[in-house]
């Protein structure tokens, strides 16, 4: 590696004076007469099929994003049917703009909760859609959001579902799960077999299995408990941590399964 001395290439020439910039502007004028580089926005859009795969509108100028426009991070689309209410989107939101609100469809005891997004706060970072284990919360190419009332910036799950139903192209990017993902482990002596984890697990990957009631030695007193223990199916688990948060005895924790 070396240095390159930056020297003026077009040295000032008092005879040419202003001829060079004038000529450059005239050249651009001639090019623009054919077609300027601008895209007439409300009438033409970059995501139009017209620009798919098109390489140039102005001579020599590559424009148009083609299929990769779909990666754009715009308004979210939510598929309410497949949402499992795991809370991961709300956890991962750096701006705290996602609230989990109740939607009809769940059983009365455990209402179904889906994300409601406040676009007044959203920074379109995409962490929520990266976090979504079911791929039901994705970002679409919709970017026109102007509203006249601040309350309209808040998109309820139903409204996000409407965005989903418009079948806008969606980003194909899916993040791979970390290879050395940790599992949720159980601290057996603390468990009272209360079934809370299994009941609230959004993926239903926790089953309560009977465990043998140990024979009591003389003088030993067991805690009053149900003789069941959660068994977590790691391949179905989305690592949302709901079971940890509902566990009354704090007997579930993150760790590496041997």
């Amino acid at each position, binding site marked *: 590696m070396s240095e390159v001395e930056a020297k003026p290439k077009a040295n000032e020439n008092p005879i040419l004076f202003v001829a060079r*910039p*004038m000529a450059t*502007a*005239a050249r651009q*004028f001639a090019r*623009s007469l054919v077609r*300027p580089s*601008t895209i007439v926005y409300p009438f033409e859009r970059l995501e139009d099929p017209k620009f798919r795969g098109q390489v140039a509108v102005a001579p020599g100028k590559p424009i148009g994003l083609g299929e990769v426009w779909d990666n754009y991070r715009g308004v979210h689309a939510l598929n309410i049917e497949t949402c499992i209410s795991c809370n991961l989107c709300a956890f991962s939101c750096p701006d705290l703009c996602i609230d989990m609100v109740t939607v009809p469809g769940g059983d009365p005891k455990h209402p179904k909760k889906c994300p409601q997004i406040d676009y007044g706060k959203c920074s379109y970072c995409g962490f929520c859609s990266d976090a979504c284990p079911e791929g039901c919360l994705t970002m679409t190419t919709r970017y026109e959001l102007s509203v006249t009332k601040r309350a309209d910036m808040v998109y309820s799950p139903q409204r996000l579902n409407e965005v989903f139903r418009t079948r806008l192209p969606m980003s194909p990017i899916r993040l791979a799960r970390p290879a050395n993902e940790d599992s949720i482990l159980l601290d057996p002596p603390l468990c009272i077999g209360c079934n809370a984890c299994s009941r609230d697990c959004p993926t239903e990957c926790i089953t309560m299995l009977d465990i043998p009631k140990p024979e009591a030695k003389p003088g030993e007193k067991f805690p009053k408990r149900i003789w069941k223990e959660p068994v977590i199916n790691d391949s179905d688990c989305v690592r949302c941590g709901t079971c940890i948060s509902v566990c009354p005895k704090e007997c579930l924790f993150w760790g590496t399964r041997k």
Partner: protein
Amino acid sequence: MAPLTLYTVSNDLVSSLLTALGNAIPNPVGAWLKSPDLITGLSVLVFAAILLAASMLNTILLIWWERKLLGRFMDRRGAMHVGYAGLLQNFADGLKLFRKNTFQPREADSLGFYTGPAAYMVTSLILFGILPISSGWNSGALPLTLLLALAIFSFAPLFIFISAWSSNNKYSLMGGMRSAAQMIAYEVPILLAVVAVVIVAGSFDLTTIVYEQQNYWFWGPLVVALIVFVAGMLAEMERIPFDLPEAEAELVEGWNTEYGGMLFAFFMLADYLRALVGSILVVLLFLGGWTLPTWVPAAATSFPLAGIFWFMLKTYLVFGLFVWVRAALPRVRTDQLLRIGWNRMIPLSLLSIFLAALLVTVKCLPFLGCVPSPGS
């Protein structure tokens, strides 16, 4: 046939109208309606109204022309939505400005603040009134139209300074100061360059100057004077690269920082009115006015209003040159403008006077023009 001037047209119009009206109405009123004094007075008013309408329309069209041209220079389209190709965009903008609240900064001097834009506008309109547009369109026979035009042209810095000083803003004040300071730097070269034209044409009357160019346009023999005049006009019109008084990079908007609404519209309109007049002066002095070279087929000059058509075409092309300059050149600094004016343009204009005198003396003018003079 006597040349049909705009004044005679309006005079005929008014007199025929009033005569018909006076014949229909019983005598005391009817006779008064037919009196020549009333007819003269009214026809002057009609003449002024037509002038005003024509100048305003042209100014607005000029703004559109600049926006479209500049758009293409900048690889974009310019105004394009209101009206065909955005032709009505400037009317919409004007309407918006008209409806806006005019406000005045606290502790601004009301008298200067409001009279400044008005006087700026009025002097620019007067300018348009005295220029001949074609053989059939002029305000009548003033012997020294060229001098009058240049004199009124150079009023502007005064009103700019008045409005700048009275708006009680440091940026405005600096813009006004610049405007006043740089005035001499370009007024002197402009006048000297005009002297060269006057020497060759032998008259201060613009109509005469145009008729002198029927055989050869003056830009060829007087190219040095043309360069000086165009550069000086750029400064006179306060356009890039010489728009120092309103240099928006450092002075926000210079002397019209504090103006909004209709008052700003006045400044804007007057600026373009002056740009129009500047282009017209270039056409009149150097590009043969409404005349065409003699080798052009007669059909090109014989259709109705041909003179006006060719004249306006030339004017808009000259203004296109100004737009081109704006698209390609950065702004100079105050001291550099003064230096350009005193060190470059004044010697050049003196040279052009010398050349003009030489050309007149040795009578070699026709050979430098576009076509040989029929007299030679």
